[in-house]
C-alpha cells in the first residue's frame, strides 16, 4: 500500500526509532524526511513493530473454585477465579440447580480488598452519627463489648439484648440467642416477605418464600404480581428464559427489567394488586374456567362454612364428633359428610344444616364464599380500582386459566400494606387452576433436611438446647431465650418486625432493649421511617455493627467488627431457590487481604459471650482455645460442617465422602430431584385440613378474614396534581454491598422515574432536580434527579431501594455517587399490619421542581 507515495528508495540511513526520536523533534523530523527516505522508515518501523509484539499466550488465566455467592442473600452457585492471590472473576457453575450470575456477583472482584472494607475492629470516638472511629485490637473490642453487655444485663436482664440480621449468618442466629440468653433475634422480614409468608403458611401450610416457587422451567404462563423475577435469583431467570414456551406477564406500577425482553408489562396503580387478583378470580369462577376436580379433592373449597365464618365440623353435627373433621356436602349421597369420606363433594352447595344441639345453621361452601367475595371485583369494578382496563383483566384471567398458568408467590413484597391479601389471592388463583405441585405449577421444594443449628430436646424430664455439633445447654440457662420476642408480643403472626425493637428501645414497650447487634444488615435502608431507626440508635447503651463494608448504620455504632466475606469462610447449607433437595457450600477460596483482620461473626459473638457470660459460651460448646482464630477455623467450623454432613448423609443414605467430594468439585450435591404431584396429592400440606386452603382456617383462628379482599394502601393516597405514589424496588445490581462498590456508580439508576405525561404536565424535563416530601411524614424531604421514562405508570414515581440516598459520612466522602437518589425508608411511615406485623415501604409524596 505504501508504494503509492513511497516510490524511491534512494537513501539508507541507519537509525533506530529511539535515536530517531531523540535526535529530532517531530516537526524538524518531518522536515528532514525526503519522501524517498520514507520507504526506509517503513521497513524500519515494521521490523520494530514485530519485535515489540507480545507473545499471545502471555495472558494468564485464573484458577476457578466452586463456591456460593454472597453478594446478596441469594447464595447462587458460582466459581470464583483466583489469579495472583486475588479473586478476579466469577462465572456460573454449569449444572448447578441454582447457578449464578448477576451484576452483583460479577462485582465480587471489587469487594475483596475494597477501600470501604472493614479491616480491623473500631471503636467510636465522637458522638453517635458523627462517624469517627479509631481502630482497636480485637481483644480490647471484645472485652469492652462484653463488660458493657454484662452491665446492661445486670440492669435490664438478658432479654434487653437484641440481634437484627438479614440473610447473612441467619442459620446461626438461634445459637446467638441462646448464647446471650435473649429471645430477640429479629430479622428483616417485616419489610420483605412477611406478608407472603403469612399467606403461604395459611393457604399452603408452608411459610418461607423459597419453599414453594413456580416451576419456571416447565411453566407455560407465568404471572408476576408484586414480583419482578429480574431482581434476584438468576437461577430462576435462567430456568424461565430457557423455557421457550413460557409466556410471562408482569403486573407492576413500573416496568421491571425483565420486560425489556419477552414479558408483557401491565402497569397497575400501586397498592391495588389484591383487587386485580380478585378480579382474575372473579372471571375464572364466573366463566367456569377453574379446575373443579382439584378444588374438590385437594382444597377446602367444598368445606361448608357457617354464617359466623367458621367451618362446619363433625363436632357441630354430631355429639362427640371431631372438631377438626370438616364437613362437605356429598352430591353422590346428597348428604353432609366428613370431607375425607365424600366421593362427590359439592362446590356450590348452600343450605341449612341441623346441628347436634338441634339448632339450624345456614351453611355455604367456601367456594361460594370466595365466589361472592370475588363478585365484588368484577372486571369493571376492578378496573376502576387498579387502572387496568377491563379487557386486559379478562384476557389475563382467561389466558391464565387456559394456559394453566402459575402466579408467582412473591418474595420481597412489603410495599403497600395489603400484600397479605394480594398473596393470599395469588395462592388461591394457583389453586383455582389446579396448578399446585404440578409440573409447571407452584411447586413445593424437596427438603434437603439440613438440621437446625440448635434444637430443644427433652431427656430424663429435662429440656436441653442441643447444638448439632453436640453441645447442650440446660433449661435453667435459657429461660429467657424461649420467651416471646418483643415483636411477637405485639404482632401475633409476625416472623420478625424490627419496629417493635425500636419501640422497646425508645419507649421500653413492652420492656427495655438496651443493646443491639446489627449483623450483616442495615436497618436505615431496610426499615420504614429511617429517622426512627436513627433515634433508637442514639438511645441505645450499646450498638455493635458487624459487617463486611462500611454501611450507613455504622455511623451510629459503638463498636464495628469486621466480618469475613463469603470468599473467606466455609459454610454449608441447603440450596435455597430450587425445587430440588440440594446441599451446597460456600468455601474459603482465599485468605483475607493482608492488611485486614476480619473474623467470622460467629467467632466474634462467641468470644463476646465467653468474656461476658462464660458459662453460656462453654455450655454451647465453646472452648478457650477457639480464642485463637485459626483454631476456630480449623476445629470449630469443620465440626459444624461435619455435623451437618453427617446428618445429611444419614438422612439420604449417601456416603459423607461422596457428598464432600462433589461439594468440593462442583460446589453442590443433588440429594433428590423434585418429584411432582406430591403435596397435597400424596401427603397433606401443613394446613389444619391438610389441604390447600382457599378459605384458610388458620387465618380465621388468628382473627383474620380468611378470604382476600382489597383495602387501600396503608399510606395517604396522592390527590393533588403534584402528589404521587413513590414506589420502590431493587434492580439486578442492587444489594446493600453492591450499591456501594465502584461499578454501582455507573450501573445503578439513582434517578427518580417519572412518566413523560406527568413530566410534561408539570414542566419537568429529564435530569431536572425535584424535592420530594413525604405526605405522611411531613418534613421528611429528599432531593433527586428525574428520569423521564415510559417505564413507570402515570401518577407514580419510582426509585430503587437500598441503592441511593446513602448518608454515612464515610460514604459521602468515598462513594459520593451513593448519596444521590432516594432512600425511600426516610419517606415511608411505619404502618404495620396489626396481626402479621408487616409494613409498607411505598408511600405518597408531594414534589416540587427545583
Amino acid at each position, binding site marked *: *500500500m*505504501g508504494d*503509492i*507515495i*513511497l516510490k524511491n528508495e534512494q537513501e539508507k540511513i541507519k537509525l533506530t*526509532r529511539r535515536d530517531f*526520536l531523540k535526535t529530532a*523533534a*517531530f*516537526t524538524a523530523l*518531518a*522536515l528532514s*524526511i525526503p*519522501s524517498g527516505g*520514507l520507504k526506509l*522508515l*517503513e*521497513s*524500519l*518501523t*515494521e521490523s520494530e*513493530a514485530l519485535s515489540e509484539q507480545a507473545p499471545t499466550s502471555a495472558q494468564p488465566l485464573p484458577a476457578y473454585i466452586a463456591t456460593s455467592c454472597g453478594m446478596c442473600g441469594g447464595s447462587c452457585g458460582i466459581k470464583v477465579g483466583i489469579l495472583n492471590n486475588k479473586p478476579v472473576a466469577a462465572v456460573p457453575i454449569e449444572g448447578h440447580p441454582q447457578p449464578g450470575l448477576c451484576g452483583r456477583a460479577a462485582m465480587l472482584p471489587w469487594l475483596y480488598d475494597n477501600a470501604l472494607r472493614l479491616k480491623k475492629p473500631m471503636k467510636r470516638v465522637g458522638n453517635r452519627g458523627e462517624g469517627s472511629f479509631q481502630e482497636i485490637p480485637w481483644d480490647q473490642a471484645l472485652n469492652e463489648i462484653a463488660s458493657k453487655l454484662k452491665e446492661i444485663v445486670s440492669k435490664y436482664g438478658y432479654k434487653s439484648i437484641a440481634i437484627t440480621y438479614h440473610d447473612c449468618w441467619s442459620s446461626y442466629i438461634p445459637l446467638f440467642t441462646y448464647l446471650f440468653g435473649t429471645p430477640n433475634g429479629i430479622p428483616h422480614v417485616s419489610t420483605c416477605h412477611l406478608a407472603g409468608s403469612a399467606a403461604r403458611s395459611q393457604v399452603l401450610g408452608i411459610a418461607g418464600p423459597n419453599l414453594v416457587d413456580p416451576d419456571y422451567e416447565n411453566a407455560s404462563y407465568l404471572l408476576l404480581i408484586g414480583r419482578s423475577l429480574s431482581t434476584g435469583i438468576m437461577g430462576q431467570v435462567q430456568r424461565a428464559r430457557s423455557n421457550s414456551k413460557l409466556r410471562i406477564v408482569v403486573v407492576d406500577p413500573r416496568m421491571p427489567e425483565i420486560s425489556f425482553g419477552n414479558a408483557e408489562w401491565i402497569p397497575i396503580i400501586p397498592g391495588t394488586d389484591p383487587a386485580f387478583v380478585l378480579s382474575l378470580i372473579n372471571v375464572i369462577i364466573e366463566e367456569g374456567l377453574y379446575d373443579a376436580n382439584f378444588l374438590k379433592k385437594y382444597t377446602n373449597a367444598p368445606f361448608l362454612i357457617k354464617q359466623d365464618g367458621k367451618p362446619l365440623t363433625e363436632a357441630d353435627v354430631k355429639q362427640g364428633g371431631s372438631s377438626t373433621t370438616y364437613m362437605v356436602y356429598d352430591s353422590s349421597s346428597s348428604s353432609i359428610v366428613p370431607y375425607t369420606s365424600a366421593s362427590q363433594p359439592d362446590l356450590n352447595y348452600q343450605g341449612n344444616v341441623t346441628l347436634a344441639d338441634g339448632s339450624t345453621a345456614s351453611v355455604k361452601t367456601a367456594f361460594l364464599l370466595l365466589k361472592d367475595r370475588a363478585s365484588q371485583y368484577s372486571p369493571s369494578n376492578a378496573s376502576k380500582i387498579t387502572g387496568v382496563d377491563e379487557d386486559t383483566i379478562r384476557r389475563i384471567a382467561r389466558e391464565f386459566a387456559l394456559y394453566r398458568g402459575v402466579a408467582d408467590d412473591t418474595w420481597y413484597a412489603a410495599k403497600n400494606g395489603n400484600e397479605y391479601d394480594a398473596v393470599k389471592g395469588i395462592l388461591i388463583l394457583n389453586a383455582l387452576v389446579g396448578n399446585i405441585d404440578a409440573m409447571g405449577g407452584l411447586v413445593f421444594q424437596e427438603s434437603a433436611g439440613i438440621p437446625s443449628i440448635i434444637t430443644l430436646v427433652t431427656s430424663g424430664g429435662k429440656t436441653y438446647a442441643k447444638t448439632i455439633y453436640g453441645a447442650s445447654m440446660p433449661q435453667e440457662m435459657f429461660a429467657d431465650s424461649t420467651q416471646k420476642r418483643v415483636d411477637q408480643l405485639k404482632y401475633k403472626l409476625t416472623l420478625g418486625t424490627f419496629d417493635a425493637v425500636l419501640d422497646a428501645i425508645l419507649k421500653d414497650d413492652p420492656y427495655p432493649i438496651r443493646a443491639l447487634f446489627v449483623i450483616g444488615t442495615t436497618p436505615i435502608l431496610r426499615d420504614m421511617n429511617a429517622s426512627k431507626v436513627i433515634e433508637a440508635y442514639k438511645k441505645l447503651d450499646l450498638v455493635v455493627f458487624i459487617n463486611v463494608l462500611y454501611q450507613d448504620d455504622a455511623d451510629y455504632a459503638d463498636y464495628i467488627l469486621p466480618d469475613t466475606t463469603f470468599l473467606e469462610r466455609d459454610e454449608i447449607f441447603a440450596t435455597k431457590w430450587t425445587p430440588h433437595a440440594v446441599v451446597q457450600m460456600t468455601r474459603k477460596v482465599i485468605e483475607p487481604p493482608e492488611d485486614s483482620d476480619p473474623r467470622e461473626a460467629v467467632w466474634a459473638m462467641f468470644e463476646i459471650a465467653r468474656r461476658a457470660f462464660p458459662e453460656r459460651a462453654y455450655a454451647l460448646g465453646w472452648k478457650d482455645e477457639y480464642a485463637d482464630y485459626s483454631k476456630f477455623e480449623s476445629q470449630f467450623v469443620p465440626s459444624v460442617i461435619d455435623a451437618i454432613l453427617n446428618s445429611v448423609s444419614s438422612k439420604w443414605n449417601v456416603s459423607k465422602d461422596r457428598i464432600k467430594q462433589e461439594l468440593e468439585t462442583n460446589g453442590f450435591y443433588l440429594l433428590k430431584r423434585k418429584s411432582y404431584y406430591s403435596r397435597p396429592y400424596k401427603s397433606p400440606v401443613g394446613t389444619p385440613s391438610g389441604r390447600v386452603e382457599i378459605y384458610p382456617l388458620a387465618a380465621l383462628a388468628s382473627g383474620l378474614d380468611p378470604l382476600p379482599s382489597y383495602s387501600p394502601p396503608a399510606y395517604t393516597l396522592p390527590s393533588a396534581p403534584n402528589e404521587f405514589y413513590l414506589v420502590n424496588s431493587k434492580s439486578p445490581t442492587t444489594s446493600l454491598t453492591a450499591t456501594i462498590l465502584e461499578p454501582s456508580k455507573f450501573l445503578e439508576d439513582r434517578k427518580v422515574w417519572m412518566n413523560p405525561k406527568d413530566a410534561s404536565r408539570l414542566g419537568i424535563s429529564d435530569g431536572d432536580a425535584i424535592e420530594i416530601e413525604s405526605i405522611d411524614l411531613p418534613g421528611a424531604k429528599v432531593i433527586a434527579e428525574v428520569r423521564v421514562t415510559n417505564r413507570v405508570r402515570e401518577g407514580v414515581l419510582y426509585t430503587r431501594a437500598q441503592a441511593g440516598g446513602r448518608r454515612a459520612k464515610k460514604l459521602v466522602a468515598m462513594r459520593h455517587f451513593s448519596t444521590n437518589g432516594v432512600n425511600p425508608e426516610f419517606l415511608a411511615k411505619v404502618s404495620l399490619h396489626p396481626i402479621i406485623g408487616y409494613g409498607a415501604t411505598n408511600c405518597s409524596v408531594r414534589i416540587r421542581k427545583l
Partner: protein
Amino acid sequence: MKRIFAVTLSLIALIVGLVLGIVGFGRKEVGEIAWGFLVPGYMFFAMTAAGAALVTLAPSLFGYEGRDGELRSLRKLALWFAAGTLIPSWFLILLDLSNPGGFIYIFSGFNPDSRIAWMAALYLTTFVVLIAELIYAIVKESKEAEGVPKKAMGAIILTMIGTVVELMLVSNLSQVFGVIQTFPAWHGSYMVAIFISTSLVLGAAGMGLFGSLVMKGREKERRFITSYYGKMLIAASLALAFLLFWAFLSAYFDPMAWISFKKMLDGSYSIAFWSAAFIGLVISPILAGIALSRKSAASLMASSALSLIFGLTLLYLLIIVPQTTFFEVIPGVVRESTYAIGTAEILIALGGAFIWGALIALGFILLPLLPEERARKLFIFK
C-alpha cells in the same frame, strides 16, 4: 544587535511553545467526544496556510500578478507565511495523538482508505512544495538586482503543483469528516466547498494581517495589500456565507444532520455561532469594504483579525457540534454529549500559537522575504 535580540526572543518563544505543548501533552484527559479543540485548531493553521498560498500565488497561474508585479513581490512572504503556519498545525495534531512518535506508522502502514493517512502525505507534500517554491524564489532572485522580482517559468510550474496539492489538502481534510457516517452533519457534500472557501477567507485574512504588519511604513505595498486581500476577503466571505446558507438549507431537509445544525442556530451553541457569523460574515466584509474605499490598512487588519477569529470559531463549531449528537443503535434514541476545552488543549494550542509567532518572526528576520531583500549567506539567508 537588534537582530540578535529578535532572534533570541523568537527562539525563546519557540521553546516556550514547545514546553507548553509538552506540558499540555502530559495533562491530556479523555472527554465525552473524541475530537476536541486541537482538531479545529490544527485545521485552522492548515487551512490558513493553504489559503494564504492559494490566494497569493494561484492568480499568477491565470496571469495576474498585480499591475506592477506587486503580487509577485509578496510571493516569498506568502510562501514563508504558509510554510510557517503549517508547522504549528502539525504540532497541534501530533500532540493530539496519544503516540505522536508513532506517526511514522502512517507511512509504514499506509492505509489508502484512510483520509488521515492521505492528510499526512499531503501535509508533507504541501510543505515540501512550499519550501521548494520559496527556495526557488530566493535563489532565483538572489541573482537579480533589488526591486520587484522577475517572472520565472520555474515559479509558475511550482505554483501549479503547489496549487493542486493545497486544494487537495483542504479537500481531503474536509473528507476526513465527510466520509464519516456516524455524524450525519459531517456526512455532507457541502463539506469540500465550505472548507475551500473557509481556507480562502483564512488565507486572505492571514496574509492581510501579516502583510500589513510587515509592510509597515511602505505605503505602496500596503495599499496593494489592502486592496488585494480586502477584495479577496470580501469575495471569499460572501462565497462562504452563501455556502453555509446552502449547507444549513440542505441540512434542514436531513432530520439527522439538522439536529446538529439546529444546535448552532438556536441551541446551546447559538451564541457562538451567531456572534462568529456576525463578525465574520457581516462586520469583517464591511470593514474590508471600508479598507478598500478609504485605503485604510488599519481597517483591513481589523477585518482580517475578525475573519481569523470567525474562521477558528466556525471550524470549532463544525467539528465539535456534530460530535455531541450520536444517533443510537435503537432508532429514535439520541445520545447527547457535552464538551468543554480542557487545560491540556489550551496549553497545546497556546504552544502552537507561540511556535507560529516565533517561526514567522524567525523567517522574517533571517530570510530575504521582502521584495527587495536578497540572499547573502548560505544561498537563502539574508
